[in-house]
């Protein structure tokens, strides 16, 4: 499928109302523990997330995009994502983000496949992108790009980083982002690379009452 550019650019726009701005991709807790203090730490953290959560999101988004509304396949993908996300807090975060994107999807797409009430975010992304004339390669790219920008935007706010340094960082990560997306598209089965650090950070974060971000 020849991807339509405007809908793709719209889905990549951080101003799209999906509630994504309230998620930090785990960086809020990493900052709280002193693991990320500056752009160098942010780069380390983001690369780690790209290799694990980013790859999983890319593969899932591409698979959902290719599923062409196959209900059984989408349901199996949802379960497979649960299995590969051992942290309850991260499962909840993914479903919270998915719910937000689903709200937008229901408003804009007439005959959306049934995804339940709280599907995983990458699933909705795959399905919605397909409905908007976007192919699996681009869907995977969206999933990985938003993984990266969600983390960097939150860190920029929390650490008052120079936004130009953050923009530089994202450009420096472009190769890794593209490679992760391409790798995800190639996989016939969802990857199972976990990150126990991210799981622990997510559980700790979720239990806090004094947090700025949902996840």
């Amino acid at each position, binding site marked *: 499928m020849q991807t339509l550019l405007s809908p793709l650019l719209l889905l990549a726009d951080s101003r799209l109302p*999906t*509630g994504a*701005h*309230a998620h930090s991709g785990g960086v809020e807790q990493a900052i709280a523990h002193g693991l990320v203090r500056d752009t160098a730490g942010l780069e380390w953290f983001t690369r780690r997330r790209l290799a694990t959560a980013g790859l999983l999101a890319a593969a899932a988004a591409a698979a959902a995009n290719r599923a062409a509304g196959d209900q059984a396949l989408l349901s199996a993908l949802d379960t497979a994502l649960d299995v590969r996300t051992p942290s309850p807090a991260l499962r909840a975060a993914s479903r919270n983000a998915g719910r937000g994107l689903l*709200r937008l999807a229901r408003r804009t797409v007439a005959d959306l496949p049934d995804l339940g009430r709280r599907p995983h975010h990458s699933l909705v992304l795959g399905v919605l992108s397909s409905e908007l004339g976007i192919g699996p390669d681009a869907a995977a790219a969206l999933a990985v790009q938003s993984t990266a920008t969600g983390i960097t935007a939150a860190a920029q*706010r929390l650490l008052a980083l120079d936004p130009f340094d953050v923009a530089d960082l994202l450009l420096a990560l472009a190769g890794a982002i593209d490679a992760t997306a391409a790798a995800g598209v190639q996989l016939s089965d969802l990857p199972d690379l976990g990150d126990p650090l991210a799981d622990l950070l997510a559980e700790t974060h979720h239990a806090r*009452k004094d*947090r*700025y*971000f949902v996840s």
Partner: protein
Amino acid sequence: MSLDHDHNIDPHPHRHRRDGEPLRVGIGGPVGSGKTALVAALCRTLGPAMSLAVVTNDIYTTEDADFLRRNAVLPTDRIEAVQTGCCPHTAIREDITSNLDAIETLLERFDDQIDLVLVESGGDNLTASFSHGLVDVQIFVVDVAGGDKVPRKGGPGVTFSDLLVINKTDLAPLVGADLQVMGDDADRVRSGAPVIMMSLVEDPSAKLVADWVHEQLHRWQS
């Protein structure tokens, strides 16, 4: 001050409402202006007569929600707290998803039997205002101790809110604020749209604001 100004020409586009939906009232205003205390007063005054729920948008904590729960103005399950990721104005304005999700959760929990939802914004600056996709009417709360020039400076909240509340009038002599000036400026900037000057110290029931909310309920239900 004018309480019953009738806008013959409605300047705002309204959100698409379904039958039986609760009225959604946004309560915004700068930090410390008394939003949470006003929400608590409204819950105490209106709570007995109708099915009420609250969504709070603290910037950083669940303190506002906890305040409401501790003061038992509403049962815990009628209060939802939303995190806004360091962007309190975004969450009520250009990306209202989190707040819509919270309202949806409340409606599911109470089987759609809710008459009124109060959405309290995180304390923000004078440029913040609620999207009409999120709320039906909005109250903007400024307080006397914030300075008597605040109404004159305008801004979206002061100028275009459906109701402007000038709060803590009991503090005026202590901070050298001229209530007459504030009231006149507010009237002028708002072209006579509703303004209420009040003090929760003098009237803990916030009767004037509660009455205004009642009026809105009647207007929107007919």
